[in-house]
């Protein structure tokens, strides 16, 4: 059996993925997470001197903190199983990736286990986040210098 016919057999036997249903679940989960985020942002704006623009910083930290707690308690795993990408794409996925890696490597010790592995998954987010921010800032600086746009 060559690779092609093997793949054909696999396609025939494997159960069909419910793409539409998964998309809907992801949409709902992501939407609910973002809705909660919006509520937290309103909370910071109403009770503290934050504006629409500045309230995003404490909101992001709060959401990451809540996700870290939920991951530790094992609740986020269930949300992830239901929502798939809907639970990973918002900033909550970042907190989850950090804490789950830390829990996984706890048995290897705090320095070589937790310390060196905590950013195993989230590290790529930081690296490419910083990199893309640098590129965008560079492009914007050039455009501003050329007089195409304003800051």
């Amino acid at each position, binding site marked *: 059996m060559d690779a092609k016919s093997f793949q054909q057999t696999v396609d025939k036997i494997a159960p069909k993925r419910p793409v539409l249903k998964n998309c809907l679940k992801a949409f709902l989960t992501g939407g609910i997470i973002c809705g909660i985020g919006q509520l937290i942002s309103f909370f910071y*704006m*109403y009770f503290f*001197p*934050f*504006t*629409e623009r*500045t309230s995003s910083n404490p909101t992001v930290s709060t959401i990451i903190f809540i996700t870290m707690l939920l991951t530790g308690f094992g609740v986020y795993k269930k949300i992830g199983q239901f929502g798939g990408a809907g639970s990973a794409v918002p900033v909550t996925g970042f907190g989850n990736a950090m804490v789950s890696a830390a829990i996984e490597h706890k048995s290897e010790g705090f320095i070589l286990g937790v310390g060196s592995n905590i950013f195993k998954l989230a590290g790529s987010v930081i690296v490419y986040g910083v990199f893309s921010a640098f590129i965008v800032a560079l492009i914007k600086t050039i455009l501003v210098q050329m007089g195409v746009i304003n800051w």
Partner: protein
Amino acid sequence: MMKKLTTISCVLLLLSACSGKPQIQTYHAKDDKQEIETFKNAFKDSENLDEASGVFFDHQLVVSLQVKPFSKLRKEKITKSFEKEMKTLFPDHEVFVSSDLKITWELNKIIEKKPNEDELKKDLDEIQSLAKEET
């Protein structure tokens, strides 16, 4: 039948809520009727706004706008155009226009409370320093 009626009424309610004219609220420390009227006329027929609030105090005018959801992408442009309009309408005032929700909330608090001049000055300074905050 019942379902159809509910759907139609929902659509009508949605449409009527979206196409309504902007809600305009003002507070003038010296209660200058003419200035309030000019302010109201400037926003009366605007189709991009949900809400406009303005507070006049000692040659100072602080305006907050709430842009309709469908016009949110052009929020900055709309705010700038109204800032320009306000500056031409009230050339002897120091105009400050913002489309931030927090500023709207704070201004509405002032309009409801109708504070005396000292408090008003303090509140308006606070609002402007809030809007300048970058962090």
